[in-house]
């Protein structure tokens, strides 16, 4: 085991007995969710529309998520990015976490955990998330 970064408090450590296996949970939930969505769409079932767009004609911050996923499923990265850049990044992140989760579960590797994230980094990350969300929404409003 070694410290990945003392500054960020990231550690690779073994899972304690009876400790919640977040990697398994994440993989199972996101995998099950994706499979269910795929089956739903394969059946040709109607996909619920965005009620914000229906009511106001304006997109909500998550509008384009379904089209983004469909574009990704067809390997159209540019199209997926165009539909909703932030969701595209989230899908990419989810894929990476799933790959990591599958690897640690398969090879019984130590798990990545945060010890104590400094509050300054927490605040910076929070501010970045708000900026990204706002910028993404303006992008969607501009391209509606």
């Amino acid at each position, binding site marked *: 085991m070694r410290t990945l970064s003392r500054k960020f408090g990231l*550690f690779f450590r073994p899972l304690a007995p009876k*400790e919640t296996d977040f990697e398994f949970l994440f993989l199972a939930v996101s995998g099950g969710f994706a499979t269910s969505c795929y089956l*739903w769409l394969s059946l040709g079932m109607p996909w619920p529309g965005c009620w*914000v767009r229906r009511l106001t004609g304006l997109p909500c911050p998550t509008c384009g998520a379904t089209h983004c996923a469909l574009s990704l499923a067809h390997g159209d990265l540019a199209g997926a990015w165009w539909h909703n850049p932030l969701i595209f990044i989230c899908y990419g992140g989810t894929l990476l976490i799933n790959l990591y989760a599958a690897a640690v579960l398969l090879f019984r590797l130590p798990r990545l955990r945060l*010890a*104590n994230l400094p509050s300054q980094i927490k605040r910076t990350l929070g501010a970045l998330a708000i900026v990204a969300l706002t910028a993404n929404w303006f992008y969607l409003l501009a391209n509606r």
Partner: protein
Amino acid sequence: MKIWINRAGQNLGTFTLEEVQRGLDQSRFVPTDLGWQEGMETWKPLAEFPGLQTLPHQEPPPSLSSVAPSSPDVPPPLSEVTLAIVEGAEDGPAWERRKELGLAKALVQTWKEMLFNPTVSFTRMKTNGGFASPFLFNLTMVVIYAFFSTIYQLLWSVVIAATAGATHNESSSMIAISAGLPPLLNIVVMLVVIPLLVGSTFLSAGITHACLALFKGTSKNYEATYRVICYSYSTWIFALVPCAGWFVSGIWCLVLTIIGLSKVHKTEGWRAAVALLLPTFVCVGIVFVLYIAIIAAAVASSHHANT
């Protein structure tokens, strides 16, 4: 170097060697707690942890068994005040004791506790111990709901088929759409909906927990929030009542979740309510303001064009 401490699967945090030693001396930690630090292959009990000294005769840790009910059928009469003092005495709801009570009895008792006595029920709700129990409860509620709604839809499709011209009546309602499906497809849809709903509970718990953390209203981890959301799904039993059922269960579920969050995270009710409704408020509020601004701009420009 920091030491991670874990008790019965629950992380207690990271501490220095001196802090752990002091914790052991003051009985805040017990020799059976597990510790891990960088360089170790596995977790070790603190009694065997290098550099720590444990006292030979220490009192056992505060366990759930010391305050566990004498009979599984009769929960002990622990008041809110008592529970507030006895941290870690939480053992509810009845679903957590389903092995002793039996599945059906535990389910019915949980409904009763959650629906009619939510304040005490959430105060005595276990906030750790894994995701399995709340997950199973959530799954059970979703399965019951999906099963009965499929039955309703099948009955509905029979009614539609019996009514001339009704099948061509277009509606955006999901019930109406699925009512027009063949029976087998209705069942397939039900099977697909179940994992979708169960998965979305994890997502909604995550969003709620993040919003609560934003208002500094969290005193427990994500698991506690997930448990509140799952057990609040008790209200779904009312969704089986045609027409008004959805409305009643939806409102009641919101109320239960707010009570649950405030009791479990020991925060104010308004904080829990704002955290729960924040995503909706933000979306609706900002879109509403934008919409008003666009209308105002359109009116101003048309007025300008007329003059």
